[in-house]
């Protein structure tokens, strides 16, 4: 498919811009199809709706960077939401948030145990915990809708300095993630493990500890996402968080995080979340048939993965060619040196 290094370079550049192109096209299309779409109020709504997804996508990014995956984030959301609604309805919001985080960490720790200590493939582990988690949640809620406590449901409507509380929580979470990933040694270890796991081990990095922490982080962020979402919806039906994991992965991958590990940042997943939410919002604005929502979501996921695969292929080819080109340059210099002697 890719025939030359120049071609590969162009393809990589194009693919990096694709989400942005997508975004522009989609915004344009929806604006044309619905006059309610293009408004400040609506864009604020999109941000509010995207907040929980962005937080979860950032958490997922940590796991994806070490070439892992966590399919149980939706179930984590649900268990956290159910616990808050059933047992902590009288507690203040900040305490609920903390306990939600604790639940998320516990969930992540279970995943981490099987992935790190027992070395089972992450997607099988998290597929199993997805089912078990949802089972636990359904058991606790008795398959009934769970109402959020007043403190939690009021939280969504508060704001400080003009920033709505949910966005505030999301921003703080992102800040924490940023510090962890970009500024600490831990963050470098995450990238190292994703780039070359064995090499990381040989360098003395405690791969097990870092991987364990990464899954706990993902669980924590998933629970925060659950908190935000519960607060906004004020209730958690039995389908709360269902299929969310796929949207979260799509947001991260759309934002440039590779499923193969080692590549990806933080702004990307946030952008991916906003992109996905824009599509969903747009569909509502144009009164699209609700039945096509899963179809559109699936298509977005598919495109995100397709782009990632094409990009990974182009990068691989590019790297191969580039090294060879450098060697050829070196040889040219050698020839000149020889010719002059």
């Amino acid at each position: 498919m890719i025939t030359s290094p120049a071609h590969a370079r162009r393809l990589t550049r194009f693919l990096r811009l694709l989400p942005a192109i997508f975004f522009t096209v989609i915004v344009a299309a929806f604006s044309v199809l619905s006059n309610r779409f293009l408004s400040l109020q609506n864009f604020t709504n999109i941000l509010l709706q995207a907040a929980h997804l962005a937080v979860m996508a950032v958490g997922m990014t940590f796991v994806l960077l070490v070439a892992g995956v966590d399919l149980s984030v939706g179930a984590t959301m649900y268990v956290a939401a159910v616990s808050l609604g059933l047992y902590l309805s009288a507690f203040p919001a900040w305490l609920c948030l903390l306990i939600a985080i604790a639940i998320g960490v516990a969930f992540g720790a279970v995943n981490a145990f099987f992935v790190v200590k027992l070395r089972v493939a992450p997607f099988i582990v998290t597929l199993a915990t997805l089912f078990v988690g949802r089972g636990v949640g359904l058991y606790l809620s008795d398959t009934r809708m769970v109402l959020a406590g007043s403190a939690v449901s009021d939280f969504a409507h508060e704001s400080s300095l003009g920033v709505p509380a949910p966005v505030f929580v999301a921003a703080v979470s992102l800040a924490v993630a940023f510090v962890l990933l970009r500024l600490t040694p831990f963050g470098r270890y995450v990238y190292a493990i994703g780039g070359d796991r064995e090499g990381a081990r040989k360098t003395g990095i405690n791969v097990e500890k870092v991987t364990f922490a990464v899954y706990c982080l993902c669980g924590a962020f998933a629970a925060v996402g659950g908190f935000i979402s519960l607060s906004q919806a004020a209730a958690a039906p039995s389908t709360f968080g269902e299929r969310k994991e796929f949207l979260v992965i799509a947001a991260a991958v759309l934002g440039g995080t590779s499923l193969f590990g080692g590549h990806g940042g933080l702004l990307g997943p946030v952008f991916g979340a906003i992109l996905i939410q824009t599509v969903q919002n747009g569909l509502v604005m144009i009164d699209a048939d609700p039945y096509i929502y899963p179809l559109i979501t699936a298509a977005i996921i598919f495109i995100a993965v397709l782009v990632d695969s094409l990009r990974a292929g182009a990068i691989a080819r590019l790297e191969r060619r580039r090294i060879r080109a450098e060697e050829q340059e070196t040889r040219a210099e050698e020839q000149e040196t020889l010719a002059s002697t």
Partner: protein
Amino acid sequence: MTHSQAPVAALLTVYVIGVAVFVPQILSWQTLRDVVIAMLPLLVAVIGETFVLIVAGIDLSMTAVMGMGSVVAASIMTGTGGYLAGNPLAVPVGILVFVGVGLLVGVFNGICVARLRMPAFMVSLATMMFVGGLAVWYTSWHTRSVSISNLPELFRRIGYGTVFGMPIAFLLAVAVSLIAHSVLSRTLLGRWLYAVGRNEKAARISGVPVERVVTMAFVISGLCAALAAVIYTSRVETGTPVLAQNLLLDIIGAAVIGGVSLFGGQGTVMAALTGVLFLTVLDKGLQLLGLSLFMVLAVKGSVILLAAVLDVARQRLSESR
């Protein structure tokens, strides 16, 4: 390299004895009959999944294929306004529709994985969501309820009926098993499947048509999903988009429990059979014990995790030798 079914068989025996202490009827003929009947369509599905696992892939879309085939075929066969209502060709065409859906999705999955080099679990995930949503949408076009019933008598007989004294479902499952076993152990395609699963690069250089083999594996799993759906649909006597919604974990879990490796290059029909037997007996035991649905989910999830752990242990043991 073959994988011994002995540990699983032993575990199964222990489990049955353990349950029998509380619920002696697990050891009855009735239970045996129930288990076999329940096993048959699951076995067909797991055999399909096994083909994909052997080439180091995975197919998460099988359950969605089943749902889609179910409603499209039902919309054709149903007596209430079906496209071929009352027509003697309704049932054969209906069955062809099942197969068609399976093949179509299989080809799509296969091309994405083999030629576009996309990760199998993401592709089949996306396919699962798309086809699943499509099935629900399709249903809404044809009925105000969530399923399409009033299926022809002939079709309804497939699930529990017999021909020449043998249950039709049994014959189908046996046929699929024998053909699959033969393909895997004695044909060119079988050798190629294992080669691709073990080392794709080496296979390609040795002349194996890797893309075709991988695509074929997904086509086979789509086909098996379709055949399993025929039996399931016939048994519930309605076409419903959520036909097999809860079976995804069962299918993959059974394969892994039976010894089909998630890493590729390993797996047999015998392994599929063992896994399906184990899971079905497990289910039956939990059911007899009267445990709630949630407990069943929790136990099954845990057992599958256990099987995956054993898979890893076995892998590491063979590497250290």
